[in-house]
């Protein structure tokens, strides 16, 4: 073998290796990812679906994946979503990104998907089946953060707790965090709690109903989607406006801004960005790409404070919820953070 052929051979090998290195990024171009979603009936879920469409639409257009279709069940029922997952397996998707109706009830269907070689990434409404990936929100911490914020602002007093839908684990988790925060700070007492079902109209009615029976309220801890209705109920009752923790909804932020401009009202707002669906999409893409991804990942909260209010409100669509969409790099960072 002459020297020159050896050099050219080495060069070819180098070029091939370089090509292989590049194609690792495009390995998923033939893969199909489906979103299985259990509910689309509120502004958060609508924004979640829009974010999915926007980000995955671009990913499909530039050939990162072959398809990324969203499926929502008509009724928010476990049995229906289990059937939907089984249908998605039959349709031959390579990965299913899942916002589950129940953390346990879908385990049978998720196991079938894993056994059929389908990657399952659950987010927001996560599943406990060990073969699936979980992008969990620390809802408990979120509830606790609300109380910690109030503890910074106030010396103590009575709180009103607005809860979500009874029997849904998110409601239990946030509420547990709130109660833990109250016990830890030792300043507050929860004078009453009502179920606002994460909807402004329901919250307004529920709060208006309980207000006459309550002592002075200094703060309201909420779960999101219920702050504006609560504020309306307080305004109608003629009571002094307590600090109502908001949940990043457009109507809540608008009301906060109005109050801030009128009388310097101060509060904070925290929730999960609906764009977390896009984080789950990129995580699924990374898993299909062969990346080593830990099974449990955590989503960062999206918190809005007095100084970031104007900017956040300007970026939020009317009727929507403050949002960020995640990129491939964000997903890789979240994966790296969990791996450490």
């Amino acid at each position: 073998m002459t020297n020159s052929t050896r050099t050219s051979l080495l060069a070819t090998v180098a070029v091939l290796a370089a090509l292989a290195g590049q194609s690792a990024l495009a390995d998923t171009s033939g893969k199909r990812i489906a979103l299985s979603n259990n509910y689309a009936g509120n502004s958060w879920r609508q924004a979640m679906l829009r974010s999915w469409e926007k980000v995955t639409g671009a990913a499909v257009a530039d050939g990162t994946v072959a398809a990324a279709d969203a499926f929502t069940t008509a009724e928010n029922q476990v049995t229906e979503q289990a059937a939907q997952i089984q249908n998605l397996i039959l349709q031959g998707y390579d990965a299913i990104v899942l916002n589950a109706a129940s953390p346990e009830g879908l385990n049978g269907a998720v196991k079938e998907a894993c056994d059929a070689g389908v990657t399952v990434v659950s987010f927001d409404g996560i599943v406990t089946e060990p073969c699936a990936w979980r992008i969990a929100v620390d809802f408990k911490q979120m509830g606790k953060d609300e109380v910690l914020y109030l503890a910074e602002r106030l010396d103590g007093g009575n709180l009103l707790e607005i809860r979500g839908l009874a029997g849904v684990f998110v409601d239990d988790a946030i509420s547990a965090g709130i109660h833990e925060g109250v016990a830890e700070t030792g300043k507050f007492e929860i004078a009453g709690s009502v179920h606002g079902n994460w909807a402004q109209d329901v919250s307004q009615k529920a709060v208006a109903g309980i207000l006459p029976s309550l002592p002075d309220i200094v703060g309201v801890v909420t779960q999101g989607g219920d702050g504006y209705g609560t504020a309306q109920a307080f305004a109608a009752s003629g009571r002094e406006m307590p600090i109502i923790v908001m949940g990043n909804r457009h109507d809540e932020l608008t009301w906060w801004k109005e109050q801030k401009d009128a009388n310097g009202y101060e509060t904070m707002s925290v929730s999960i960005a609906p764009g977390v669906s896009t984080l789950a999409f990129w995580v699924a893409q990374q898993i299909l790409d062969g990346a080593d991804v830990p099974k449990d990942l955590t989503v960062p909260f999206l918190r809005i404070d007095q100084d970031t209010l104007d900017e956040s409100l300007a970026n939020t669509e009317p009727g929507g919820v403050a949002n960020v969409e995640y990129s491939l790099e964000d997903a890789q960072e979240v994966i790296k953070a969990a791996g450490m």
Partner: protein
Amino acid sequence: MSALLSPRLLRSLLPPLSLAALLIAIFWLQPRTMSYFGLNLLLNLAVPIALATIAQMFILCVNELDLSLGGFVSLVACVTATWVHDTPLLGFAALVGLIAVYAALGALIHLRNLPSIVVTLGMSFVWLGLAVLVLPTPGGKAPEYIRSLMTLKPFFVPMPIIASVLIAGLVHLFLMRSALGTVLRGAGGNAKSLERAGWSILRIKMTMFALAGFFGVLSGMALVGLTTSADANIALRYTLLSIAGVILGGGEFVGGRVSPIGAVIGAVTLALAGSFLSFLRLNPDWQIGAQGAILIIVLALRVLISRTEAKA
């Protein structure tokens, strides 16, 4: 030729024909389903629905209606995933107790002459409340033997098909072919004459409600076997699915006119209708409407056949 295709025959052929049409459409849309694995996935969630439909059929057979079945199946699922798994003796005692409550409901409805819709609607909240008490947050674990029974992979024929045929066949033999079954059905057809002939309508109603409770229990257990754990809201859809399944399978709301084989076929058809619509990539907002449309089409066909029957 006209004798061959009498309205009566057409009527009984309608449920299997609608099922076949749906199956062919699904096979055409998604050829992957035409395999052992595909049929298993497509049909396994139809098994608990078929059992719930049989339960509803027993109630409809005596001219009553059960609006609490979904809540009841949810409660059974919760009990199965907790008590039956942890303390089998207590668990099974509770399930037998639930069946006894169902029989007592039948007695209450008959003795007090109450409308069953009101009683069972009230009971649906009781069942749901109990389910939340038994299992406040989703969880629990399916007993291993139920799980392995529901995920059994027999040779050649997928488990859901064997189960459906078994359920339909056994209930058919009991209700349509045995002497006792004929008497039980008679209570829905002509209770007065049955009573004059010396049969106790009270006992018949209690038996039918107990049978409904028994199949409700089987449905809940089968469901947990598939999902591996329970949720207090897991089967709320079963109330309407089961009623629609019986009617789709050729049953009537009055007159003791029911068919076990038809009911199972109706339940499977309803379960498949959901998959069909999802394979069509229909917007979910339209899916409930489309499911309703499938029901209306089949029922309209039946009315058409009944009219020709009346003319003949």
